[in-house]
């Protein structure tokens, strides 16, 4: 059987081209959906003016925002904005929508990143410990704790954390993004959820690897179990988990709303949900494009990583 050639330059270029096409299509589709939903939700003028503003005032505002133009023109305008990166000014805040989104991005990335990293790291540690000790008790304890954590909605879990650590113990700030301490509770809320999920995936993947013949080969050579676990099984087990993690991290970037509300965390999720309900379309568009791009980029990165770890998939 001849050895397969390692991925050629053409392969890599093709991969990049396919990824780019997918990214563009994804962003375009998201923007289009957002546009359609946006126009369906109604014009924002009435939300921007005080209670005593008249219908005429509202009309005037709506047309000054461009809502009197034909839909197609508005859509093309949105697309042009997408290409030039100019999403216009937020209707409410009267600042550059993209600027506002970018202002919130660090807070969201910070939250998502730490939650993801800590969740994954803890899961790796726990899964490895379970495999190494082979302890049923440990697996049972972790399994139970996980099931209980997963049975509590994030908003409630967050509230309980606040009650214990902020109100009762006064140890940690209950809201805002003012110090490193204020990261602890929101990250803890999200990371515990992530932890449970990754632990499940990893434990299953590791258990599957443990049944593979190459593990037996290594043990039969006199390798330490820990060596086998760390250097052989973990890389093999992490490949499918990474794929899931990519999808998940992408989702996390757009979906930390509940935690952001509870902790008054100035993240993208809250900005976006507010923008949607306030019909602040420039922010919605800019935010969704960011989320979609983040999703595509994270997943491309994960794919590249997986291809590096597992060259078998490269040819496929």
């Amino acid at each position, binding site marked *: 059987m001849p050895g397969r050639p390692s991925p050629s330059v053409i392969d890599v270029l093709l991969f990049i081209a396919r990824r780019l096409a*997918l990214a563009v*299509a*994804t962003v375009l*589709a*998201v923007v289009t*959906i957002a546009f359609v*939903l946006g126009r369906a*939700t*109604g014009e924002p003028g009435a939300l921007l003016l005080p209670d005593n503003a008249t219908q005429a005032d509202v009309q005037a505002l709506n047309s000054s925002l461009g809502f009197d133009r034909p839909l197609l023109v508005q859509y093309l305008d949105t697309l042009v904005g997408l290409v030039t990166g100019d999403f216009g000014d937020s209707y409410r805040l009267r600042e550059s929508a993209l600027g506002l989104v970018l202002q919130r991005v660090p807070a969201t990335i910070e939250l998502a990143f730490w939650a993801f990293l800590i969740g994954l790291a803890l899961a790796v540690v726990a899964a490895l410990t379970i*495999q190494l000790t*082979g302890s*049923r008790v440990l*697996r049972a304890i972790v*399994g139970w704790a996980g*099931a*209980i954590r997963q*049975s*509590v*909605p*994030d*908003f*409630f879990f967050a*509230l309980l954390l606040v009650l214990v650590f902020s109100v009762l113990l006064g140890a940690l700030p209950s809201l805002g993004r003012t110090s490193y301490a204020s990261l602890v509770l929101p990250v803890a809320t999200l990371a515990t*959820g992530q932890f449970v*999920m990754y632990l*499940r*995936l990893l434990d*299953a993947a590791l*258990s*599957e690897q*443990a*049944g*593979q*013949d190459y593990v*037996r080969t290594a*043990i039969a050579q006199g390798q330490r179990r820990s060596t*086998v*676990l760390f250097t052989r*099984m973990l890389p093999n087990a992490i490949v499918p*988990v990474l794929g899931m993690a990519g*999808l*998940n*991290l*992408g*989702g*996390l970037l*757009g*979906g*930390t*709303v*509940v935690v952001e509300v509870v902790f008054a965390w100035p993240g993208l*999720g809250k900005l*976006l*949900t507010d923008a*949607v*309900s306030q*019909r602040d379309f420039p922010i919605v568009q800019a935010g*969704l494009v960011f*989320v979609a791009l983040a999703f*595509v980029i994270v997943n491309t990165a994960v794919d590249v990583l997986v291809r590096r770890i597992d060259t078998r998939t490269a040819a496929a």
Partner: protein
Amino acid sequence: MTTSLTLATAPVVRRWRPRPGAAVGALMLGTVLLLTAIVPLLPGFDPMGQDLRAALRPPFADPAHPLGTDALGRDLLSRLALASAVTLGMTVVIVIMNAVLGSLIGILAGYYGGRLEALITLVSNVTLAMPVVLLLIAICAVLRPSAGLTILVLGCTWWVGYARVTRNIAAALRRQDFVVSPLTQGGDSVWVLTRHIVPNVWPHTLIIAATDVATIVLITSSLEYLGLGVQPPVPSWGSMIFDGQRHLAGDPWLALLPGLVMLLAVGGVQFLSQQFTAETRGGLLRKGGMR
């Protein structure tokens, strides 16, 4: 719950072996189902009847309201039972919709591959990149938020996990000889899909669905936290917890009781489903002594 995805790798169907976890899980879920089934038959069942003068009664204080009353003086036990029925009902519908849709998409993508698969990848990417919460808020802004709408939106957007898993299985099955062989015997794709692919895929779908029950319950309750979903006065776990939160300091049972019921149900389903996915632990990497 965050709205991020919870996806499982294809679990392995294993023979049912009774374990303590399974018994506990069945007991937990059974308690909730029993609550849902029995309470409506009791004489005092009235989840909607308000009595502001009898508001916020603690549990066990009033025989007419065994678990107390909420801020509007409604019987908590009745509401818990109704909420369980509503939430579980919604969840089951959503899970089934997603499982069917996702498996169908996954099977078709896995079996046919090629263009169809590329299209489905795009659709699932868009679905994942478009936060469900935003979608729901936007749609609720046009239509009125309702249980039906939540079911529809969640039921159509949470299928990616199923699709991915079933796609992989279907793609693997497609290469299996037993799938090819009916084709050589004169059967067509429909025959193969219905007789061989679907029956071999659905047990996996079932397992994901079991774990998804928890996720969907949490997502719907998170959505209720944002005011989307089942509308008052019909209760759901999420809205009960959310409403109860306001009274957490003075009347904590208002949030804790639905929380507990939810824990029982969701935890129960999880324990039960773990029984299917539990591995023969340790495999070849077990402690290496002779004994």
